[in-house]
């Protein structure tokens, strides 16, 4: 169960709209390595983790990602306020504008709509945690790509830098979660069975 807090995790206050940059940054909302995919990935994968540490890491990072998608949509929203028709047409935002005006809708920078194939939920904790490590690095790379474009726009770059830094923290925590799973497996063969399916009780977990 979730409750909403009426605040952003890190403040966003963009005073100069920029339609082109909005189109780039919306990829971190609904693109292949965006925050919707991140959140849905972790919140879906939680259920087959074999110990509570791994479940908790997925649960709590998946929750934080919801706050990140709110930040990214805030950035896109503030970048697309008060645009003139000329700016919309010249910036390349035209096709998006035709379908969505300047409403928030999840798509990649190249226009590909969000779909669930942006993430996996394999039901195998080792497989899933490796995907999560890669996902955090892919999101970090995307933020690096964005930062090369917005480096001279401090009010955009500042919250993007915060989001980028969180990817690195999440990568670290997922590494620790993976270690917690592997430490409960046989190091001679981590793949002898799927701890999320074949022997779900093998890993130790507090009874309550």
């Amino acid at each position, binding site marked *: 169960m979730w*409750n909403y807090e009426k605040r952003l995790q890190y403040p966003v206050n963009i005073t100069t709209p920029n339609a082109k940059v909005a189109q780039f940054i919306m990829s971190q909302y609904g693109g292949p390595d965006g925050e919707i995919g991140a959140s849905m990935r972790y919140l879906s994968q939680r259920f087959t983790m074999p110990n*509570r540490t791994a479940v*908790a890491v997925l649960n709590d990072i998946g929750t934080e990602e919801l706050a990140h998608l709110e930040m990214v949509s805030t950035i896109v929203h503030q970048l697309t306020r008060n645009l003139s028709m000329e700016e919309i047409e010249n910036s390349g935002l035209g096709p998006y504008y035709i379908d969505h005006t300047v409403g928030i809708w999840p798509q990649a920078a190249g226009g590909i709509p969000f779909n669930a194939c942006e993430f996996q939920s394999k039901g195998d904790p080792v497989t899933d945690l490796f995907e999560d490590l890669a996902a955090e690095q892919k999101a970090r790379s995307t933020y690096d790509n964005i930062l090369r474009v917005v480096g001279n726009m401090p009010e955009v770059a500042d919250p993007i830098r915060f989001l980028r830094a969180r990817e690195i923290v999440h990568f670290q925590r997922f590494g620790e979660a993976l270690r917690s799973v592997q430490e409960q497996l046989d190091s001679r063969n981590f793949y002898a069975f799927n701890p999320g399916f074949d022997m779900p009780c093998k890993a130790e*977990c*507090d*009874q*309550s």
Partner: protein
Amino acid sequence: MKNGENINSRKQFLKKLNEVSFAVDDLLLYLDTHPTDPKALELFTQVSSRRNHLLKEYSSLYGPLTIDSATDSDLSTWQWAQQPFPWEQEGGCR
């Protein structure tokens, strides 16, 4: 709690918390569109303070359900992650 005692009383407690929490959920939607209804405001005040009280008490007895009540439980270790998740049926992560 750790040895499996009090599972029934924990479940009873959780049932009370679920009921009062749903009252909060439903009243907040009603109040979003009826922000000056005095009866709803009065009822919200009652159920919200009951919920906050129960969350604190639950945390001290069994461990935290929300991060803001995490300090109401024994903090010699981080209990938040080790509480059973709501889809578990048998304990031991199942």
